[in-house]
């Protein structure tokens, strides 16, 4: 496995939505990152659809057909449909097979009739449970995940993505207690180890089919921190600490690309701009059109360098304006159209900068993901590119420096809680050992004892 030790982008200004250094081609005449932005639609299966395979297949078909109907009704030239599997789909790979197949068929019909460009993303669920022996590796659940990935690839998915959960037990502990060391260990070390285990296999499976290995997000860790951080007035997780967690997540999610994933990276990876800067792969992101799913503090900023623009996920039901697959594809479709107009008229950098500046100082989490700062974090990562521990730590330190500079420049203002937790985290990180082995040893000793769910065997430690 080749680690990234240099940046693919030469400077941040090169980065812009709709264009990636390494565009991806898929069936049905789709190119991603090749000069246009694709809108994405994703809808959660309705309650009850999990009761039988037939219901789930019909649900998947219905979501697909509604999305297609609206796409042609409003003239979208292209779109991506993602299906995030629920437990039952992944746990029963034949469900995966049939669901994927009906979706592929439906999409192909529209492609044939209207010449519309379509991409189908399948996202099997990572149903592994660390606390249930034998844990993350070679358990029954682990096998089902791989079988489902293969069933997706074999039955018409244009690409597969996943949100793996390696290291979650430790990072959860760290996030809830504001313990920066646990977060670094959970994300930077354990997360990266598990990524390698998963992604080498995923890439091998995809090679057998006309299906691309896309990417993985640190939903289980950095998004948990972001969720707990919540709005400006919430008090469950410091927003500066969440910003550091995000920076570390980039070092972790990069591993998928190092194993052969080619993008577009999955939508809920808010760390994706950093990975794009490092590796040049196209990315999916979400923001102001994902308010149905959750509230973030950077609804525009996340569009700045995106290639696929997503609604994250929404209940499957009726709105006054149509069904939710219709309504939310229209939402992301119109935003993508705006970006494409900018690309066509050569104004993409202006729009990118407006997107960015709208949220750059709304919250420290947005600040570190502004494309210029994302690039800086990327540089910090590749500097220590060969060592997952050191590169996550470097990412966190750089994110801290970025926040502190903005504070000094009187552009970012922090609450006491944010200020204190940042200072304390940076102090801890600065004092950590320079050797990975030593850090791992320390952490194993400390956290194996404190965290019941954490099982070093799941990471071959």
């Amino acid at each position: 496995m080749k680690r990234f030790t240099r940046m693919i982008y030469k400077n941040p200004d090169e980065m812009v939505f709709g264009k990636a250094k390494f565009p991806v081609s898929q069936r049905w005449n789709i190119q991603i990152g090749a000069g246009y932005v694709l809108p994405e639609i994703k809808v959660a299966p309705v309650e009850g659809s999990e009761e039988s395979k037939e219901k789930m297949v019909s649900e998947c078909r219905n979501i697909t057909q509604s999305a297609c109907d609206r796409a042609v009704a409003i003239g979208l030239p292209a779109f991506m449909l993602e299906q995030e599997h629920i437990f039952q789909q992944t746990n029963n790979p034949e469900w995966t097979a049939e669901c994927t197949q009906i979706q592929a068929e439906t999409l192909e019909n529209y492609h044939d009739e209207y010449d519309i460009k379509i991409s189908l993303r399948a996202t099997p669920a990572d149903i592994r449970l660390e606390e249930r022996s034998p844990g993350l590796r070679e358990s029954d659940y682990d096998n089902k995940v791989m079988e489902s990935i293969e069933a997706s690839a074999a039955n018409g998915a244009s690409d597969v993505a996943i949100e793996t959960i390696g290291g979650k037990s430790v990072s959860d502990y760290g996030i809830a207690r504001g313990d920066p060391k646990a977060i670094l260990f959970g994300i930077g070390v354990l997360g990266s180890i598990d990524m390698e285990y998963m992604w080498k296999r995923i890439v091998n499976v995809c090679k057998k089919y006309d299906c691309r290995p896309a990417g993985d997000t640190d939903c289980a860790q950095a998004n948990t921190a972001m969720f707990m951080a919540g709005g400006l007035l919430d008090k469950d997780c410091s927003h500066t600490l969440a910003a550091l967690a995000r920076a570390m997540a980039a070092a972790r999610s990069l591993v998928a690309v190092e194993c052969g994933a080619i993008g577009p990276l999955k939508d809920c990876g808010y760390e994706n701009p950093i990975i794009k800067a490092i590796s040049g792969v196209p990315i999916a992101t979400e923001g102001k059109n994902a308010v149905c799913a959750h509230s973030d503090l950077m609804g525009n900023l996340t569009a700045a360098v995106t290639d696929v623009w997503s609604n994250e996920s929404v209940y499957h039901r009726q709105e006054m304006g149509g069904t939710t697959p219709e309504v939310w594809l229209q939402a992301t479709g119109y935003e993508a159209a705006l970006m494409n107009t900018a690309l066509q008229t050569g104004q993409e950098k202006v729009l990118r900068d407006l997107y960015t500046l709208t949220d750059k100082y709304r919250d420290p989490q947005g600040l570190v993901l502004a494309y210029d700062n994302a690039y800086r974090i990327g540089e910090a990562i590749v500097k220590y590119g060969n060592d997952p521990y050191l590169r996550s730590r470097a990412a966190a330190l750089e994110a801290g420096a970025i926040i502190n500079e903005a504070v000094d420049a009187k552009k970012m203002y922090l609450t006491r809680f944010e200020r204190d937790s940042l200072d304390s985290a940076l102090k801890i990180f600065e004092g950590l050992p320079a050797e990975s082995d030593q850090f791992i040893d320390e952490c194993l000793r400390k956290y194996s004892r404190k965290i019941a769910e954490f099982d070093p065997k799941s990471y071959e430690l």
Partner: protein
Amino acid sequence: MSYEELENKMDQTFIAVRYNVEIEGAAIKPEEDLDVVNIIPTEEPFRAIALAVLYEDRDASLANVEKALANDIPPIDIINKGLMKGMDAVSLLYTKGFYFLPDLMLAGDGMMEGIKECEKVLGHKSETKGTVVSFVAEGDPHDIGKNLVVMFLRAGGYEAIDMGRDVPTVDVVKAIKEHKPIFVTGTALMTTTMTVFPKVVEALQKEGLEVPAIGCGGGAVRKDFVESFPMSVYGVEAYHAPKLADAIVKDKKTWKDLRKEYADIVGEFVSEYS
């Protein structure tokens, strides 16, 4: 850069594809459509009568009917073999996407004009497939959806009693008692007026009355809401109304069947019914 300069840089199809233009086939004469050929009678004077409806020519329609009546053609035949066949063809062309709503409305006007002439000779109202009562919920002024429903029902051969809009719920119940409809259609466009539907059902149940089905539709009405009380079926498109009525009349479907078989009955993918 100026607006004009920006505009000149654009390739519009990159942003928005006019699929309506892209997929448009060649223009054909309506009577040459293969399915229409099978509907329009070959025998005169019925052919001329049907074609006048197909061509949305109200004056010609009237003249044709008058001439046929003068020639002692039975008014029932004029209606069933002529006017209705023309309208069937129009509906079909609408479903196929060649005809548009105004075509339907104008053809319908022509047909109704002809039927009225025939009824004058008949001395009574002509037979219809059945009676339907249509209303807009109390407190609701939105009535275009209801107007369309009424139009489609009439075009489909039903007698549709149009009760108007903002109709007091008691009046709806009264009308149901009076007309014993095979189908009732209610339209509401607001969350706060769709609550009238379960009230109608309750009132009917209190009086021990039943109708085969109450189709409830309109902008803000949701299927889950409509299915939370009995006797009702969620209606999606106005042109589904006669198909639902047909299912009730011809196939003796109940509201329970309609809920289950909606998409099959209307013969197309309906997003709300997966």
